[in-house]
């Protein structure tokens, strides 16, 4: 699993725990009222569950398993941008109900979430393609790319 997928999937698990906690607070309050602020969590519960949990998990796994270009995954910057944008957007939606001008934060959060999804589409679009047929030439090319990538990683570590 590539590093960025690890971030995506781990973030999705955090959002699952968070969304489940919000849901449990709302549901228990519905049964026996104990937290008058519980309903303020509803927007965050929906966004965190649908986008944070399910969508980030799907995007993370898609980044991992969609067909690659040799050893590279194409427009990787867009996938990283999508991850950052989605997390900042979700954070804004989470904190929005606790501020007086919360609707502005909610709007900005939703904007960042929409941008994140578009950025990931830009990343993933060219990767939705038939698998490459391996010929001697493409195998040599892939080996060269892999070596170049390893050198890059080594240089970055040094």
């Amino acid at each position, binding site marked *: *699993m*590539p590093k960025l997928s690890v971030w995506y999937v781990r973030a999705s698990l955090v959002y699952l*725990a968070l969304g489940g*906690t919000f*849901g449990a607070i709302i*549901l*228990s309050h519905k*049964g026996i009222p104990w937290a008058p602020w519980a309903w303020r969590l509803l927007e965050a519960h929906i966004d965190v569950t649908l986008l944070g949990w399910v969508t980030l998990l799907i995007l993370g796994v898609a980044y991992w398993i969609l067909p690659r270009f040799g050893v590279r995954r194409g427009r990787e910057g867009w996938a990283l941008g999508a991850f950052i944008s989605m997390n900042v957007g979700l954070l804004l939606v989470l904190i929005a109900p606790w501020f007086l001008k919360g609707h502005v934060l909610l709007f900005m959060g939703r904007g960042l979430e929409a941008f994140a999804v578009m950025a990931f589409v830009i990343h993933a679009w060219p990767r939705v393609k038939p698998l490459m047929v391996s010929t001697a030439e493409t195998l040599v090319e892939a080996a060269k790319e892999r070596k170049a990538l390893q050198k890059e990683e080594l240089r970055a570590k040094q």
Partner: protein
Amino acid sequence: MPRVTRWFVRLSLLYLVGALLVGLGLAARQMGWGPSWIARWSPVYFHFFMLGWATQLIFGVAHWMFPNYTPEAPRGNEGLVWFALISVNVGLVLRAVAEPLLGRGPLWGWALVVAAVLQWAGIIAFVWNTWPRVRPRR
């Protein structure tokens, strides 16, 4: 496919059917058919879809396909995953029963609290077991 995965996947399929039937009941209620308590099942409809269907299907497949934890315990603590399966499902069914009966005595209010705790505990148990399996290639 591990045994607990088979349970997750089969139950998720049943919830998909259940969600659509609840949706049908809600639509019928809007036409004036059926008892009035059906209208209170609206949150149950969404949660059958999201938790019963989508989340449980993901749980089952993730438990099966994610990178192994260790050679000795490739899928982590299986007991925790069985607990997640039982806890989430008992919680979800209890919610479906209690939600329309809310307001007919304190018992049903407390039933919702128990349902909330069970679903939450199941989710946390799954996250706890899955977390160490999400890691870069060694």
